[in-house]
């Protein structure tokens, strides 16, 4: 075997460099982030927190929630609505597809609703890669200059990720309730506090409906109605690929480029030695035995 000359070493170096630049072009060799589609298993937790903002002349607001402690705090502002909900599995695949939510807030003839803040909580599960469980919320805030009779919302409950999920295992980081219903303190039911704590999460859900519809013209004895249809769509979820998934995609790139380089480099090597481009000294490999003997002596 010919010894490695300086030139040969350099050529080899360049080739290896080229090899790796080609491999790591654009996305690089390793798959660092990937995504998949899944329809989440969403269930409405039947937790509601409602604040209805009234017109100025009647002052203040009306509030109600499914949390007894919150209701106790409201005093005169408490007004119990009629809430009816239904979750529908349209394609009968075992996963709910939408929530029909209707809230009728009885009002006196002098009360006028100008704005609404509503929190609905959901349990949200992803299954395909990592088993991800969280309790999330849909926050709806809408107001209008004219006193309303009905608010119609038709939107999607979308997943928002700040960081990719992991590729396996159980993830219950956010399996904590959005509203601490056991707490007797007013602070725990403060909307700013609830939203601030919720937005701190890396994974949240939001209600996407840019244009809630206000219907105006409420008769004196009619209640204020919130009519919401919330859909649970299929989500594209980004995640960090696991070790074997990275290897699966990497080795194909590695081998395919390596084969070409090996072939090209082989040709160059042959050309160099056959045409004696550099001075080469043929050296015969000494038998192992002799070397050993020599060393002994």
């Amino acid at each position, binding site marked *: 075997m010919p010894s490695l000359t300086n030139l040969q070493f350099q050529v080899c170096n360049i080739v290896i460099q080229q090899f790796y630049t080609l491999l790591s072009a654009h996305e690089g060799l390793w798959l660092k982030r990937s995504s998949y589609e899944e329809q989440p298993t969403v269930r409405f937790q039947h937790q509601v927190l409602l604040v209805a903002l009234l017109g100025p002349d009647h002052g203040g607001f009306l509030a109600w929630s499914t949390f007894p402690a919150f209701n106790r705090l409201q005093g005169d502002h408490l007004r119990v609505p009629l809430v009816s909900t239904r979750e529908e599995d349209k394609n009968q695949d*075992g996963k709910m597809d939408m929530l029909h939510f209707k809230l009728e807030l009885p009002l006196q003839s002098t009360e006028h609703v100008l704005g609404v803040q509503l929190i609905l909580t959901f349990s949200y599960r992803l299954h395909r890669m990592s088993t991800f469980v969280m309790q999330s919320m849909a926050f709806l805030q809408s107001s209008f200059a004219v006193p309303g009779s009905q608010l119609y919302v038709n939107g999607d409950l979308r997943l928002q990720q700040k960081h990719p999920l992991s590729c396996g295992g159980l993830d219950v980081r956010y399996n904590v309730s959005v509203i601490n219903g056991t707490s007797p303190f007013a602070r725990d039911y403060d909307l700013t506090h609830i939203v601030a704590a919720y937005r701190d999460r890396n994974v949240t859900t939001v209600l996407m409906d840019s244009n809630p519809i206000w219907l105006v013209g409420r008769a004196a004895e009619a209640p204020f109605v919130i009519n919401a249809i919330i859909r649970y769509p299929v989500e594209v979820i980004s995640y960090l690929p696991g070790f074997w998934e990275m290897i699966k995609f990497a080795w194909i790139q590695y081998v395919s480029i390596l084969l070409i380089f090996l072939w090209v480099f082989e040709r160059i090597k042959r050309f160099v030695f056959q045409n004696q481009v550099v001075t080469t000294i043929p050296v015969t490999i000494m038998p192992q035995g002799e070397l050993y003997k020599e060393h002994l002596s």
Partner: protein
Amino acid sequence: MRCDSFHHPPPTRLGTAETHFKLVGVLTAPMCISQLMLLQVFFLMVPEGVWLQPSSPSGAAPTPSDVGPASPGGTLQSSSEGSETPWPVPGISTAGPTVVTPSAPENGTVDLFPALPVCVCDLTPGTCDINCCCDRDCYLLHPRTVFSFCLPGSVRSSSWMCVDNSLIFRSNSPFPSRVFMDSGGVRQFCVLVNNSRLNYFQKLQKVNATNFQALATEFGGESFTSTFQTQSPPPFYRAGDPILTYFPKWSVISLLRQPAGVGAGGLCAESNPAGFLESKSTTCARFFKNLTNSCTLDPALNAASYYNFTVLKVPRGMTDLQNTKFQVPVTLVSQAGSPLLSGNICQNVVSQVIYEIETNGTFGIQKVSVSFGQTNLTVEPDTSLQQHFLIRFRAFQQSTVASLTGPRSGNPGYIVGKPLLALTGDKSHSMTLLQSQGDGICSVKKHEVQFGVNAISGCKLRLKKVDCSHLQQEIYQTLHGKTSPEHVAIFGNADPAQKREWTRILSRNCNVSAMHCTSCCVIPVSLEIQVLWAYTGLQSNPQAHVSGARFLYQCQSIKDSQQVTEVALTTVVTFVDITQKPEPPRGQPRIDWKLPFDFFFPLKIAFSRGVDSQKGSASLILILCLLVLGVLKLETK
């Protein structure tokens, strides 16, 4: 791919402009670019008298020098004037042609024939029209020297058919041809089409009374239509048809109206018609700026305006309005007074209108009766009123007993959103929840429990000064309604007479013994109605049935000494689906599997598309076969 049509025209027919042009046209097809060489050869060879045989196009390989680009100036070698006579033999073609040599090809508008028989732009007689190159009033020999351009139509128009110039190297077409620059700066090779069939509009069609409509419908599309349509009245009403009414006092035909809320305001749309056989109820709101006036003047508040007319039995009655045979009077079920303003109160205002209409097939409406709900309104600056309108249709002489049982909630299985049926004694009714009034106090009105819809509601109850057992009784009554439901219907079509179609409601009152207080009164504060339901029957036609229901009361103890005046009550209804789904068929992945069950995905796609993508699946199979072959070959090596 080869352009066969190129080789086919027999040489003897090349002479007409039409066929010749077709030749050029063929070239524009993208497939034929490869044939360009052949075309050039073709054009080159013809004048030299060498006729290509369609069978041997390849025999005419050009030498490189033969193939030259079209001359940049754009003109051409063109061309003997194409008379209508076919091209006879190559030699004779040069015999008597009018050679056209366009001189300024680039901008194309050459004033070849300044005097036109009809000058389309000569609009002002006796005056020179600007830029009208054919206007004789201008007395210009060379109008283009004075005008900046010539209006279209003021020079002889000609129809050119063009192809991209790069497709043509040389033209030996006998017809006038030119190279123009189009608006995009692309050079176009154009041939003057000299064929009356192509150049002129086809001869006008004769229009007369018989074919006018046919032509209008054949060539016309959507257009404006006048809304006024005259139609003879149909012999009888069909479902959904508006119902005709007649006011004998004013001899006016109108429609039976069912005002409905419309638009964002929910205001009453007065003229919303009622549909024949469509029993429905509508609700809408009315606002009054000045109730003192409206109270007696507004017909919408006056009961009389809802029955001071007759209803036409069948629309055909329109033709003979004097004949009362075709008319049915609206009968009053109960007396309804007209609105009356007494002091600050407007009395007898219509808040609800219920029409009961009996029909008899194609014989139309047999009987119409109306009943009213009335209320009093206080005169305030901005008063509003909600009105309810209900129209019920019933078959004529249908036994009233049958109609008393009320509508089914499904047949047999419950339909989501229909009332949940309950039975007290022998009387069937729908299960209800509490509802609160505007001020939060418990309302007399109750909310119907809908099947499959979870609901919560509550209200405040003012406590009267009564003893404990009376208090308990009153609150229980408020929670579950006047009478406590004992049974719930298993299916939506349960018959009150058939006891086995009903299941007993499990009721659990609160545990009194747990309280260690003698002077206390234990009162229920909430009722939770739990309904377990499931689908039965075929999976393709599931029927929902109630498996069981339970009343769960929760209690609170109040001390007699405490001055409790108000208690908050809550009612909740929960539907729990306990359906056991059958195992999915073999081969279908389960929802909780994490295996890569899409391994054969491409195959599945290919085969499931079916007939419409035969080609796709064929090529896929081919690729798969090649792969398998390749693998086999590798193994044998």
